[in-house]
């Protein structure tokens, strides 16, 4: 029973609980056990089995009384440790927030609990969501459940939502929250053979989400099917007056409107995404994706996004600039770590606390951000980057005259062994070259699993849509899912 239950996704659990095929408590117990057995993945920073059980019992009680059940009723999920959870340690995978127990609940997590979900635990991530391999966490690397054929080397689950991707791919959580600043939902989803969608900027409230780069940060669901993502996104999204950039719009019924028939839809293929250094297997899966969408009735059109090449360098000015400002709050005064050497003054306390509390990648980005915002360099770097960002967004605007949704690879390569890209930060940054343009433009974008490499690693395809048009993204994702028949699962070694 237990293993059967952990093989289920969001929809199957919700519908099974509602139908009385099994209880929410049985589901929660099964996943709690699976989580406890998977410590080798290091996907969770803390586990919260009691939270999952309490939510399950509440759902079972509601059902017994014949009350209406929420969209996520009976589904235990993993919560990226970037969301403030009341009374449960929230660290952003940093030492500086170790022991921090928020006195409030983030809007997105509260929305999920209100919809009937429970929490299995807080998921590991790259420190302050800065990283593409989940190797910058203070709480250790996360391993992907996937391994290359014939090798025992630990592979990267991607980042920054690497705990989320690892847990969902390993079937120790049916779904998890992620956040995406420059690819942090899509790249880990692609690396682990699962789905993940970053909605339009402003769909999900940022209130209570540890801030990295506020003009880019956006929460979204990670799960094993497009339907599950549609259900969970519907529960997460919604207007929140506590976030000044929250979209004051109704949340569409994405799940109910799912439609894989793409007749009359035009799918754009951006020629600039055919970049040097992209693996052959990725290019083949892109071709395969085109064929699938054509088969679903879509018309394939070539488009151009001329400033694509400049998106990543612009991102690496804008995101660190915003991070250097956002992370100024970690000062050893209000929460988290304090390092106070004997006889030290306030300034020394700040500098010592931040030295001890931030990891190398965080320091690197705070320094870059401080530099590009400093007097004399602001125009040359920050303003120039914001102008290029406007051009990247304009590229998309112009492309929408020719297409309704864009198909591209999610990443230039499959997953890589942990430790293999640590030498040079720049090589690591290139992982997000295909993901960042949609982030800069605030557009909805999704990764869906497509094919497998010859050595047994999953590859993802990316769909980018117009602002507010998550539906077209999900629909095209569903068309791919139905044709790929992707049901590969990692072999259990943990």
């Amino acid at each position, binding site marked *: 029973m237990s293993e059967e239950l952990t093989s289920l996704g969001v929809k199957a659990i919700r519908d099974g609980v509602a139908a009385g095929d099994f209880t929410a408590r049985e589901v929660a117990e099964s996943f709690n056990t699976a989580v406890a057995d998977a410590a080798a993945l290091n996907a969770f920073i803390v586990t919260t089995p009691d939270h999952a059980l309490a939510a399950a019992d509440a759902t079972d009680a509601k059902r017994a009384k014949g009350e209406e059940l929420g969209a996520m009723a009976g589904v235990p999920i993993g919560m990226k440790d970037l969301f403030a959870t009341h009374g449960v340690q929230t660290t952003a995978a940093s030492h500086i927030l170790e022991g921090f127990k928020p006195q409030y609940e983030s809007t997105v997590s509260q929305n999920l609990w209100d919809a009937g979900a429970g929490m299995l635990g807080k998921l590991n991530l790259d420190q302050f969501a800065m990283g593409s391999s989940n190797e910058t966490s203070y709480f250790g690397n996360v391993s992907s459940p996937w391994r290359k054929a014939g090798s025992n080397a630990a592979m990267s689950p991607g980042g920054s939502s690497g705990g989320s991707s690892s847990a969902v791919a390993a079937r120790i959580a049916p779904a998890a929250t992620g956040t995406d600043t420059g690819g942090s939902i899509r790249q880990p989803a692609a690396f682990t053979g699962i789905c993940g969608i970053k909605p339009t900027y402003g769909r999900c409230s940022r209130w209570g989400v540890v801030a990295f780069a506020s003009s880019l940060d956006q929460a979204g669901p990670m799960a094993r099917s497009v339907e599950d993502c549609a259900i969970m996104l519907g529960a997460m999204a919604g207007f929140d007056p506590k976030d000044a950039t929250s979209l004051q719009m109704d949340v569409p019924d994405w799940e109910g409107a799912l439609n894989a028939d793409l007749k009359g839809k035009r799918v754009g293929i951006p020629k600039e995404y055919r970049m040097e250094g992209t693996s052959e297997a990725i290019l083949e899966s892109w071709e395969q994706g085109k064929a699938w969408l054509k088969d679903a009735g879509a018309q394939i059109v070539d488009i151009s996004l001329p400033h694509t090449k400049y998106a990543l360098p612009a991102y690496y000015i804008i995101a660190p600039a915003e991070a250097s400002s956002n992370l100024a709050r970690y000062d050893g005064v209000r929460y988290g770590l304090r390092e106070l050497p004997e006889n030290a003054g306030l300034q020394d306390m700040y500098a010592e606390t931040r030295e001890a509390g931030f990891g190398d990648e965080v320091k690197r980005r705070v320094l870059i951000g401080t530099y590009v915002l400093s007097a004399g360099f602001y125009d040359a770097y920050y303003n*120039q980057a914001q102008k290029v960002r406007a051009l990247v967004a304009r590229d998309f605007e112009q492309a929408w005259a020719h297409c309704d949704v864009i198909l591209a690879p999610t990443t230039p390569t499959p997953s890589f062994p942990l430790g293999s890209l640590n030498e040079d930060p720049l090589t690591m940054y290139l992982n997000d070259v295909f993901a960042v343009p949609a982030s800069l433009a605030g557009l909805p974008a999704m990764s869906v699993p497509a094919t497998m490499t010859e050595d047994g690693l999953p590859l993802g395809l990316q769909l980018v849509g117009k602002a507010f048009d998550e539906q077209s993204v999900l629909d095209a994702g569903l068309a791919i899912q139905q044709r790929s028949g992707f049901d590969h699962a990692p072999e259990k070694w943990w």
Partner: protein
Amino acid sequence: MSVTKQDVAKIAGLARINMSEEELDHMVPELNNILEWVEQLGEVDVEGVEPMAAVIENTLRLRADEVDADPKTGGGKRDAVLANAPVAEHGFFGVPKVIE
């Protein structure tokens, strides 16, 4: 543009992050690699382009002029605000002496 060790030390000072000599030595080439790479943005013709201010068209809202309109972000939360402070005394955040 490239940065020297002195520049990085100055930036680290502005960012309030202590860095050892060794860390500075390590950081200089890393930052220079990144800065050299972002230089390519200078190639882009941005004549007449306004820097992006908001990624999605949105209007700024005003909240109702009401005390504690939303209790979650309203007042009366002193103990909750101080709950995670490394040092809290008499209802305040404690910090080292600032004025001699």
